[in-house]
Structures are given as structure tokens and as C-alpha cells.
């Protein structure tokens, strides 16, 4: 019966593929600065972030206007929960610019996943997460060498205290790889893969909705409504994911920096 209908209606469902993430270049094609749709979305979203920040802080008042209040609330939330919580207030002040730039860049680039007409998170391309992961990695190494003392930092990281010395043979290489290789990679991959899969999931749901509603006969349309409901539920879920990934990335970076500060903190 299904087969008969499928034969009767020549429409075929094409699921979203990995090619979603490799659209044609629009600007500066062929140069290293080539902008395709996703990179254009990235640039636009960052411009939007800067505009919002500028609107919030251009005329700071002791008694805040409404938008300044929103900006202040966001600042306060990130400062307290992401920056100061692992780092403390003094060191928090030092690293606030970096961590806040990370948090808000990631969140705005994630947010285009669910905002029309973009509907694509530019963090699903690994470039930005990798750059941010490397910056995080370079920062905690720099902080470790500068604040904990060069050699001492590596000793602290590779030979954790309270472990019987024969175990160092086993632990030191593991620590070496986990700290200096896996940290930036896991940061980057966690973010990219979540946004990558999230986008494919939404594209699949809404693609199927469109397919069942508009290209299939009566009974199938009900399935389209079901897919639409799924799509909306996943959109809410992705909204959570958008904030959560920015939060996790920044919080982990702050924690790595706090660990590097060691006793100096």
C-alpha cells in the first residue's frame, strides 16, 4: 500500500546533507576572505552583537535606561556565574573581557540557528570553535607560566599532588595529553558538533514537515503536523542548547585558567 502510493506520487524526500554547511561563496570568492552564506551570517551576527552592546553602553547612566538594564543584567549574570564563580572577583576582573567576549560571541553565533532568515548557527563550522579553543588553551598556558612559574606550572599539571610516585609513570603522559591536547579539542568539538547536529535535526524536522504537508496526499499530512510539532519542540531544546554551549565553553575556559593560577589564585 505504501509502496503503491510512493509509486503513485513521484515526490521523493531529500534529507539535509552535510552539503548544508558548504554553500557557494557569495563575496570575495576564490580569496582567503571568501564569504559564503554561513560566514556572512557570522559577520552579520557579530555586527548585530556589537550594535546591541553599543546601544547598551554608549550613554551609561547610574539610573539605567531599559536597554542598558538588559545589557547590565547580561553582564552581571555572566560575570557572576561564569567568570567570578571559578576565578574569584579579583582575577575575574582581569579575565572578564576575554571570557565575556567568548560567551557573547558564541551565544550570538549560535542564536542564528533558530532566528529567521538565517536558520544556521555559524559555530557549526569548526573554524570559530577551533580559534576559541586555541585562545582558551594559549590563555591557560600563558597564565600558568606567568602566575604559577614556568617550570612549576608543568610540574603541577603533570604530577598532581597526593599520588604515589610510581603512578606518575602512568599519570604524567595521560595528564600531558588530556591537558595540553584534549582540552582545546574537546572545547571546539563539543561546541561544533552540538550546533552541527542541532541544525541538521531542525532541518530534518522542518524539511519533513514541508514534504509531508505539501507534497504528500491527505493521510500523510497528519504526519507533517507531527513533524512540525517535533520541530517546534526541538527548537525550544536548541534554544537551551544555544545558551548552554556558550555557558559550558566559557565556564570550562574560566576553570582551566583558575587551575593554572593554582596557588597564586
Amino acid at each position, binding site marked *: 500500500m505504501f509502496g503503491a502510493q510512493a509509486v503513485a506520487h513521484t515526490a521523493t524526500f531529500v534529507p539535509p546533507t552535510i552539503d548544508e554547511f558548504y554553500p557557494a561563496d557569495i563575496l570575495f570568492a576564490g580569496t582567503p576572505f571568501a564569504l559564503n552564506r554561513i560566514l556572512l551570517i557570522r559577520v552579520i551576527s557579530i555586527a548585530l552583537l556589537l550594535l546591541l552592546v553599543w546601544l547598551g553602553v554608549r550613554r551609561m547612566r547610574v539610573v539605567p535606561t531599559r536597554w542598558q538594564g538588559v545589557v547590565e543584567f547580561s553582564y552581571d549574570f555572566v560575570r557572576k556565574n561564569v567568570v567570578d564563580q571559578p576565578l574569584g572577583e579579583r582575577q575575574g576582573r582581569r579575565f572578564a573581557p576575554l571570557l565575556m567576549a567568548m560567551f557573547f560571541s558564541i551565544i550570538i553565533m549560535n542564536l542564528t540557528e533558530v532566528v529567521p532568515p538565517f536558520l544556521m548557527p555559524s559555530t557549526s563550522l569548526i*573554524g570559530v570553535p*577551533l580559534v576559541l579553543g586555541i585562545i582558551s588553551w594559549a590563555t591557560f598556558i600563558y597564565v600558568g607560566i606567568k602566575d604559577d612559574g614556568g617550570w612549576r606550572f608543568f610540574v603541577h599539571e603533570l604530577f598532581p599532588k597526593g599520588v604515589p610516585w610510581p603512578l606518575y609513570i602512568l599519570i604524567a603522559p595521560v595528564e600531558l595529553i588530556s591537558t595540553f591536547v584534549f582540552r582545546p579539542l574537546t572545547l571546539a568539538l563539543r561546541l561544533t558538533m552540538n550546533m552541527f547536529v542541532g541544525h541538521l535535526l531542525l532541518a530534518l524536522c522542518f524539511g519533513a514537515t514541508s514534504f509531508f504537508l505539501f507534497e504528500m496526499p491527505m493521510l500523510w499530512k497528519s504526519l507533517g503536523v507531527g513533524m512540525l510539532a517535533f520541530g517546534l519542540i526541538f527548537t525550544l531544546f536548541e534554544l537551551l542548547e544555544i545558551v548552554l554551549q556558550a555557558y559550558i565553553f566559557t565556564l570550562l575556559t574560566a576553570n582551566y585558567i583558575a587551575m593554572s593560577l593554582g596557588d597564586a589564585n
Partner: protein
Amino acid sequence: MLTFAAVTAASESHNPLLPSVPDLIWGTVCFVVVLGVFWKYALPRIQTMLDERSEKIAGGIQKAEAAQAEAANALESYNAQLADARAEANQIRARAREDAEKIAAEITAKAKREGERIVAQATAQTETDRAAAFRELKGEVGVLAVDLASQIVGVSLGDDAQAKAVVDRFIDQLGKADAAAPEGAAR
């Protein structure tokens, strides 16, 4: 068919774990711009404003506390002044009453003395006047008696016995008054 193969081949060549050069460049540019704006512009402004605000709030609280303390001080000193003034007023009133009593007593005493003096003086004057009058009268009475007697005698010779009786009684009375006079002068 050929294009389809080309498309699949193209999609297989994409590895989502390997970044493209433009992706890296635009990622770096975007983040560096955001970092710069946050670091040099947005966060210092927010921090300055927050510091200013907390300073203002702390200052406001301090100011309010100072004002309250000042008000309490003022109230205290006002109350103290009031109490002082009240005590002083009481003192003044008491002193005034005392003074008034003293003055009243003095005046009364003075008046009494004066009265006594006047009475004494008047009494003495009266006495001297009386004594003087008496002395004068005593001198004149004889003359008057003689006059009277001569008149009586001269006017009514027919009534001799009666005139005699009048003169006798007059003389008698004068003698009594003469006997009483020294007694009244001594008094």
C-alpha cells in the same frame, strides 16, 4: 548521472572537522573585534558606571546616616536647651515670687511704720493742740465769763437768782474741766 557523481564526490571531500581558510580567518577577525570592543570600550564603561553607582549608593547611605546622627544631636541639644530654659524660667519665677514677697513685706512693714508714725505724730499734734487750746481757752474763759456775766447781769436784772445760778454752774464746770485738763494732756 555525471553531475550526480560529481556532487557526491564533492560532499565526500568535505570534512566537518577540518576548517577552511576563510572560516578560520573570519572566525579570528570576528572574535578579535568583539574582544577589542569588550576590552577597550564596553566593559570599562560598564565597570566605571557600576563603581560610580556603588559609590553613590554607599555615599548616599553614609550621607543619610550622617544626617540622621546630626538630627539626633540637634534634637538632643534642643531638648537640653529646652530643659535648661525651663529650669531657668522656674528659677526666675521662684526668685520673682521671693522678691515680690520680700518687697510686699517691706512695703507692708514700711506702710505700717509710716502709719504708726503718722498716727503717733497726729496723736502728739492733737495733744499739743488740745493742750494749747486748753491753755488759750483757760485764759479766755475768765474774760468770757466776765463778759457773759456782765451781759447777763446787764441784760436781765430782774432775773437775778437765775443768772447767779448760771454763772455758778459755769464756774463749776470750768473748775471740773481744769481738774480734768492736766489728766488729758498727760495721756
